[in-house]
Every structure is written in C-alpha cells, then in structure tokens.
C-alpha cells in the first residue's frame, strides 16, 4: 500500500555495524549489521526474547554494544549515550510513553526542552506562542480535541502514547525510533500513527518500527528485518513477502516436537485446582483446571494478562470476579499471606523487586516464608534454622552458603533461593511467573528439573513464560493468552512451537 523505496538510490541514514551485546551468561545480540535509509520505514520483528528491544536500546544509546557500533550519517561519532543519540537526531518513542502526570499536556509536549538547559527560559516554558505550537503538534497526531492546558493524568493509555508522539512535531530529528510504540494504541489511533509515519517518511525521516504485531508491520513498513535468538535472520522488502514467510523467519524452520513423552495426568484424574470466570486487571473470564501432578503453561505476549491471572489467584492483586477452587475448597486470598495459608505460592517474575530481601543472606531469604516453624513463642531457634538452610542449599544446589548474600548471586541461583523459599511452604498450587527470566542456559535445566519434580510430587504447577520453546518442553498443557483471554489450548503432542507463537500473535487469522 505504500510507495516503493528504491533502496539502491536512497540516502543512508544510519548504519548498525556488526553489533553484538552480551549480558552475563546471555548473548542477546550477535553480529547485527543493518542499514537504514532516509524516507524509509524499517520494521524490526522478532518473538519475545529475540533481541529487538536490546537492539532498540542500543540504537537509542541507552545500552552500549559489547562489540560493533551505531553510526548516524552526518554525525561525527558513534552512538554511545542517550545524549549522543539526541544530538544525532534520533527521537525515541518508548513502549511506555514518557509522560509526567503532574504536568499539563503542553508541558509534556515540550518535555525535551527541560533537558537542554542552554535554551530554556524557565518562565516561558509554555508561553502563548508555545501553546499555539502545542495545539498544532497535537492536531498533527489527531489530538485536536485535547486542550494544551488539560491535565495529563486523566488521559487514557492510548491518548498518552499519542501525546508522546506529538513530540515528533516539536523535536527536530532525522531518525524516528518507535519501540513497540503501538502496543497500547487502539485501532483509531493507529490510523493517526500511520498518517504521522507517512508524513515523516515523505519528509525524509528514517523510521525504525520495532514490533511483533504483524498487521501493523505490514501496513506501515517498507522493509522488515527479522531477529531470532539475537541473530539477524534476514531482511525482506515488505511488498515482496507475506505474513507466513515473516512468521516462519521469526519462529524458525525446524519446529520439532520436544520431549513428547511426558503426557501428565490423564483426563480421568480429578482437577485439584478449578479456576472459573476469573477476571482481574486485563484478564477476563478465565476458566481452567490443573490436575495434581500437572504442569500447565500460560503463554502470551508481555501485557496479555497472563501475570494478572497468577497474581489475582495468589492474592498479589485484587480479583474482580470469578472463583478459585483448590481441593474442593473455594479460596479467595486477599493478601499473599492469606494465599500462603491457602497453600498457594507465587514466585514473581521480578526477583529484585518482589523475590528476595537484598539485605538478607540466602538462609534468611529461604526461611522468610516459614519463620514461625523455627520459633517457639516468637523466639527463633537459629541452630535449627541454620541446619535446615544447609539442607536446602545442598538440595537445590545453590551456589554459596547460608550466610552469603542472595543479592550477590547470579540470576539462576537467586531463582533457586526463591524457589526454595516457596517450596518450603509446601504449597498445593505453585504459580511460577517467568521462572527462567534472565537466567542462562546452564542454570535453566536445573530449574526445569525442580519444576518437574514438583509435579511428580503431585502438586499443581502453573508456569508463565514468554518462551514458546520452554513452555512446550516443560508443560503438559499450554493455554494461549491473548488480550486478556484464553484463546487456545495446546499440548506438546498435538501442537508445535510454531502453533503456540502464531496463536499468541493472532497470526492465524491475519
């Protein structure tokens, strides 16, 4: 639907030159080389964890590449910092719009000016002239009905994103980087984004659109670069390819069934956990069962509502509707403490924020959920506690001792500490949110084993993951969550990883 870009004749806007990025234990990007041209929309696609966010961060100067560099045409140095990126004319639109709630709409439009101290006059941040400019900027992104002096806090997420987009009108730039910017945009605003991108392109801006939404990628881009596992799989001209080819590139060709031997408990086993009509946050009308000894996967994109399901079952967030039944008893924990009493454990995906106590040793972290067990009249038996800690450290193969600090461990070992802490509570239902997030391959296997052992002990296990491969390997059944609802149910016997990813993206109907 968009005009052809004659790549050979176009002017180069930026070059990604052999960029690699390594995090401790994980290679997020390997040897990416990619060129962007003026007046072109380059889409960067990939499944969860493919490395597209890392690449976007490197382009924006927020992360340093481990090797290689980013060069912008007409800019003297490589991009090493956000200030570099700004000087070079790269304008970044985040997935979560950078909006200051306590500022007015106009103040948010001109937010960038606050950072350039040399040309800011504090008394006229929003002068009359500026107000007119803000109005024009808002109109250009379809927000003409919003007053520049309105309060920002009342805007819906979609409108906030468009407000951030209005900065394209007031901040000079050569390169526009949209990092999953449309994730919270509604259909009508998407048309505005489309119009804006079209206008930018005709003005010669080079646009980078990072997304996993096929439909948007195809309606917007000129070329599509596909990442998988940190590698650049290929670049296609949008006109010359189709959804299927791109999805295949994202998912990988060899989609074999993994470890199909384990089938889990059969249909005849009565469910231990029954969730009916659950609604919380973005999740709505969720029904599913978990049998004792079964591992059920919840697969979906980030923000699809999968965490809301687990968090509302475990008392971490409020439930709007629905029931949860465990062993024939209806449970409705209002707090994590109630959930513990109801034998529900939830291991958060954010270990630093919710997983462990940074000032605590491994031992203290492990016994945090079961302290009363070591106490008589509130007084702890430290020897008894230390003995149990040593046992658990050995059992879970945690690197370090009971007295070394959890904060200093690797992600994998921190996760083992968290698992040990939760398993000590002897839960019936265990909800694991992204149990291998940020954990290197070696440590993953032992976490998988631990999870399998739990199921073998007859517990009901729910695993949330962004990685289709992991979820298919680990789980007996997988529920596909999209836009807050269960859209499909799959098993590793009947379905491929390809099916799982397509279902979560809504790729089938496209």
């Amino acid at each position, binding site marked *: 639907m968009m005009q052809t870009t004659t790549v050979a004749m176009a002017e180069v806007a930026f070059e990604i030159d052999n960029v690699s990025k390594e995090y401790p234990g994980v290679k997020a990007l390997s040897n990416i080389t990619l060129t962007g041209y003026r007046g072109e929309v380059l889409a960067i696609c990939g499944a969860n964890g493919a490395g597209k966010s890392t690449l976007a961060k490197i382009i924006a100067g927020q992360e340093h590449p481990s090797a290689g560099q980013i060069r912008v045409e007409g800019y003297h140095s490589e991009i090493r910092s956000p200030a570099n990126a700004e000087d070079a004319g790269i304008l970044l639109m985040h997935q979560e719009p950078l909006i200051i709630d306590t500022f007015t709409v106009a103040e948010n439009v001109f937010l960038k000016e606050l950072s350039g101290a040399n040309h800011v006059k504090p008394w006229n941040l929003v002068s009359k002239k500026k107000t007119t400019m803000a109005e024009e900027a808002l109109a250009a992104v379809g927000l003409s009905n919003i007053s520049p002096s309105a309060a920002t806090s009342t805007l819906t997420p979609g409108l906030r994103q468009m407000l951030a987009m209005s900065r394209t009108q007031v901040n000079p730039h050569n390169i526009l980087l949209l990092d999953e910017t449309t994730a919270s945009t509604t259909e009508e605003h998407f048309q505005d984004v489309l119009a804006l991108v079209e206008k930018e392109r005709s003005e010669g801006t080079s646009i980078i659109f990072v997304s996993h939404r096929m439909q948007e990628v195809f309606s917007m881009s000129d070329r599509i670069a596909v990442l998988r596992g940190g590698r650049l799989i290929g670049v296609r001209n949008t006109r010359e390819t189709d959804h299927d080819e791109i999805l295949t590139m994202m998912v990988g060709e060899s989609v074999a069934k993994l470890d199909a031997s384990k089938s889990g408990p059969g249909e005849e086993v009565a469910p231990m956990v029954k969730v009916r009509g659950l609604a919380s946050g973005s999740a709505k009308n969720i029904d599913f069962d978990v049998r004792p000894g079964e591992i059920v996967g919840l697969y979906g994109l980030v923000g699809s509502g999968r965490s809301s399901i687990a968090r509302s079952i475990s008392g*971490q967030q409020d439930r709007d509707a629905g029931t949860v039944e465990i062993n024939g008893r209806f449970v409705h924990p209002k*707090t*994590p*403490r109630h*959930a*513990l009493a109801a034998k529900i454990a*939830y291991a*958060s995906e954010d270990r630093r*924020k*919710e*997983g*462990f*106590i*940074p*000032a*605590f*040793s491994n*031992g*203290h972290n492990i016994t*945090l*959920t079961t*302290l*009363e067990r070591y*106490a008589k009249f*509130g*007084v*702890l038996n*430290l*020897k008894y*506690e*230390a003995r149990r*800690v040593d046992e658990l450290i050995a059992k879970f193969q945690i690197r370090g*001792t*009971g*007295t*070394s*600090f959890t*904060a*200093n461990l690797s992600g994998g070992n921190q996760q083992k500490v968290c698992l040990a*802490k939760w398993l000590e*509570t002897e839960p019936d239902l265990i909800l694991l949110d992204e149990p291998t997030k940020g954990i290197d391959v070696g440590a993953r296997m032992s976490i998988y084993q631990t999870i399998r052992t739990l199921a073998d002990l007859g517990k009901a296990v729910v695993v949330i993951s962004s990685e289709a491969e992991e979820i298919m390997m680990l789980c007996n059944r997988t529920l596909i969550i999209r836009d807050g609802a269960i859209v499909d149910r799959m098993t590793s016997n009947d379905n491929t990883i390809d099916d799982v990813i397509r279902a979560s993206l809504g790729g089938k109907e496209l």
Partner: protein
Amino acid sequence: MTTLTTMQDPAAAGPERHNPFLVWLKGQYPLFILIVLLIIAAVASDSFFTARNLTNVLLQVSVIGIVTLAQFLIVLTGGIDISVGSVLALAGVLSAGFLGGNNVLLAIVVAICVGLIFGILTGYLVAFRGLEPFIVTLGVMALARGLVYAYTEGVPVRPGAEGFRDVATSTVFGIPILGLIWVALALITAFVVRRTVLGRRIYAVGSNKQAAYASGIPVKSTLMAVYAAAGVMVGLSGFLMAARIGAATPTAGSLFELDAIAAVVIGGAVLSGGRGTVTGAVTGTLILGVISNLLILLNVSAYLQDAFRGALILFAVVFTTVDFGKRITRNKRMS
C-alpha cells in the same frame, strides 16, 4: 551460630570479591571511632577516666540512649521519628503531674502509656494509612510539644513523691541504675531484632517492603509493633528524664530526635532501612556522649560542640558510602 553474623554487618553486602575481613573491619568503624575518641580523651584530659566522670557520662547518655534504641527500631523499618523529643517531654510532665506525682509506680505507668498512645497513633497512620513517617511524626512532634506547654504553661512540674528521683540517683555496685536500665533495654532490643520472628520481619520490611509483603510477612502489624515498642521506650525515657532532673521541664527532650537519628546513623544503620545493629546504635550514643563530655572537660564553647557533632555525622555518612574496592575507578571516571 553463623547465621547471626550476617546481620551484624551492615556493610557486608558489597560484591563478593572484597576481602571478607576488610568488609567486616569496615563494618566495625563506629567502634574504632569510639576507641580513638577514648584515647584522645585519656591524653587530653586527666579527669576523663575518673569514676566520677565516667558515671557522669553514663548518666548523661542513658536517657538519650533509650530514645536512640527506639529511633533505631524505626529506622530499621525504613522510617524516621522526629517526634521522640516532644513525646518524651509530654510523658515526663504528665507522669510528674498526674495526681500530683505522688506515686512513683503510677508515674512510670502514666509515662509508658503516654508513649504507647503516641506510638500507636504514629504506627496506625504510617502502617495502616500508608503515610510518610516524616510528615506524621512532624505533626505528632508539634502536637505533643503543644500539649506540654498547654499543660505546664511553661513552668516545670515538680512531682510530689519523695522517691521520684531514686531511679536516677541510686546505684548498684557503684553503677547507676539509670545506666543499667539502658543496658537492659539494649540487650532486649538486640535479642528481639536478632533472635525473634518479629526482628527478622523488621529487617525484611525495612530492606524490601514489597518482597516482604509478597512473601507473606504481615507488613502492617510489623510496623505497628515497632512504633508501639518505640513509643513505650520513649515514654519511659520521659519519666527517667524527669527523675534525673527532679522535675519535668517543658523543654525536656528538645533536639533529642536529631541526636537519636545521628547516633543511629553514626552507628552504621541505613536510613532507607533494613541495615543496622543494636551494637552500632549503642556505640553511636556513646560516641556522641563522649564527645560532648570531652568538649566540656576541655572548656570548648557549647556552640563549637554542635559543630563537632555535625562534622562527625557528615564524616560517618560519607564513610559508609565509600567503597574501598571501587574508589579508584570512580575517581577515574570523574576526571
């Protein structure tokens, strides 16, 4: 046994590559400051190491020492209490004035109850209403001090009971009872924070409230318990203060909140919570006490004493943030 040592060491959370001994040593810095001060005191003044003067030091630091213990508990949870001085004064005047202050036991009960009531009030607002401890205690500070002046009309309250001063004047084996009360409370506090479920919860809530909550720790009641316990100690200090002076003055305890916070910080506790030891808080109290005593012995002006104290606080907080292993790289980056 070994699990004990981890909590004692506020600085031990640095990267593992650091020499554990050096890290431990760094954690003991309040003790070194105290030792250095005692050496300076011994050299600078003949009269410092006399039984009479040491008893005097102990009497001077005991009341503020108990207030510091209360402050320490609150700081451990990541909070701060700037109302301790005012609540102390209110507890003092009411215990000396209630029914004419004719019964010592009643006076003690009154003082503790006053502290407890304000502790529960603060605790309720902080724990259950989610308000900032600083603002809440700012309000409580003004409220309590205002009530003190309203009740006394600015005139010290003299208690009627003959034995009112006994606690502050009598000794056991030459050691003032007042000092023994402080030591006993310090030991109890140390036991609670290190050896009980409540203590472990206090550290957990102070270090990462969200993770503590997610782990099933009753965050609100833990905070409530801390503010109530701190209130009891502050109330008791109010009585002890009045007993030591022989009258409850309306200005009693002014600026105690700052001294208590200073002692806690000098003792190595972190204001953001989760780190700190009773040993540190006690050492911090002694450091401040020795400094003011020494400066008095050396006839240094009272104004300069404050300056010394301020400099020491700055030194202590800067010192705790210095990471010896990383200092070189940090300097490099700056240049």
